[in-house]
């Protein structure tokens, strides 16, 4: 749930990047941090293991400007993707306003994507949130691997696996090159801000 400060006219919005291990959640944030450096006042916070895997979360705050006189502060979080860290994933999801589900387009990751999405559904339920109601955008990441001869799933298959019931906005993307990273971010911010506005009216 977003926090709205009426005195200082600030709205804090929490957006979480969720997905299976090594799908590119942190890479998404790193690209945003580089690309929009001049709009971001703070440093990106990363809690990593020695092997560069996310241990707790990454955190990237930035200002989006004003809507109706209110400063919108967007706070991007990632969760650790590894299966064993579900307790931590759950903690990071607390008070979430919008989710980007990052799926790994590699063929061998097909099952992991589905498992991770199911777990997101369960984790949200534990906070009495519904995956069908919360602003959600799905990103099919790593499509650049096709050029390197790595077998990847066609978007139609990914869409059928992950988005046939949810029917949320989705994007093919490549977090490493930055393709559609900004488009994904823009979409989740706009859906989230609209949903907060609706709750307030």
């Amino acid at each position, binding site marked *: *749930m*977003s*926090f*709205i*400060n*009426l*005195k200082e006219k600030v709205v*804090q919005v*929490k957006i979480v990047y969720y997905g299976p291990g090594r799908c590119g959640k942190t890479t998404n944030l790193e690209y945003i941090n580089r690309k929009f450096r001049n709009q971001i*006042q*703070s*440093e990106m*916070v990363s*809690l990593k293991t020695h092997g560069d895997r996310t241990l*707790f*979360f990454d*955190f990237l*705050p930035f200002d989006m400007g004003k809507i109706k006189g209110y400063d919108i*502060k967007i*706070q991007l*979080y990632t969760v650790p993707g590894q299966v064993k860290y579900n*307790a931590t994933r759950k*903690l*990071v999801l*607390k*008070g*979430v306003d919008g989710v980007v589900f990052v799926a790994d387009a590699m063929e061998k990751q097909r099952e992991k994507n589905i498992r991770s999405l199911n777990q997101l559904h369960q984790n949200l339920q534990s906070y009495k949130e519904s995956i069908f109601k919360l602003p959600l955008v799905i990103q099919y990441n790593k499509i650049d691997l096709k050029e390197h001869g790595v077998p990847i799933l066609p978007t139609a298959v990914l869409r059928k696996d992950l988005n046939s019931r949810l029917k949320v906005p989705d994007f093919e993307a490549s977090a490493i090159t930055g393709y559609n990273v900004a488009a994904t971010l823009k979409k989740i911010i706009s859906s989230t801000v609209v949903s907060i506005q609706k709750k307030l009216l």
Partner: protein
Amino acid sequence: MNYGIVSQEQLEQIDTILSSKLIKLGVDCVIIIDMAGNIITAKDNGESKYDVYSFAALAAGNFATVDAMAKLVGEAEFSLLFHKGQESNIHFSKIDDELLLISMFGKDISLGFLRLNVVEAIEQIRTVWEGNKT
């Protein structure tokens, strides 16, 4: 968890409590956050330049971790935390299930004195906050 909007009046009352109980004492910076990592309010002595937003995210994570550790040793909760450094110290104290009060202070203030003031501030903040729920 319906606390998303706090009135201007309540925030001002809370700010006054923080100023009179803690900033006046010599604390560098006081932040109230919720367990999701949002900042409810932040007050400082006008000199400290902390990145309070990152701080809030990390503090909420830190507290959640400690909460999980408490459960492992059979405690319901550890309601306060203290980190000691060479020049500065951080004191975390739970206000209620949703809120956390964080004080950052230098070596000039004794921990005992700070804790006494934190307890008083928290009692007063609770009274203001309860008014929000009803």
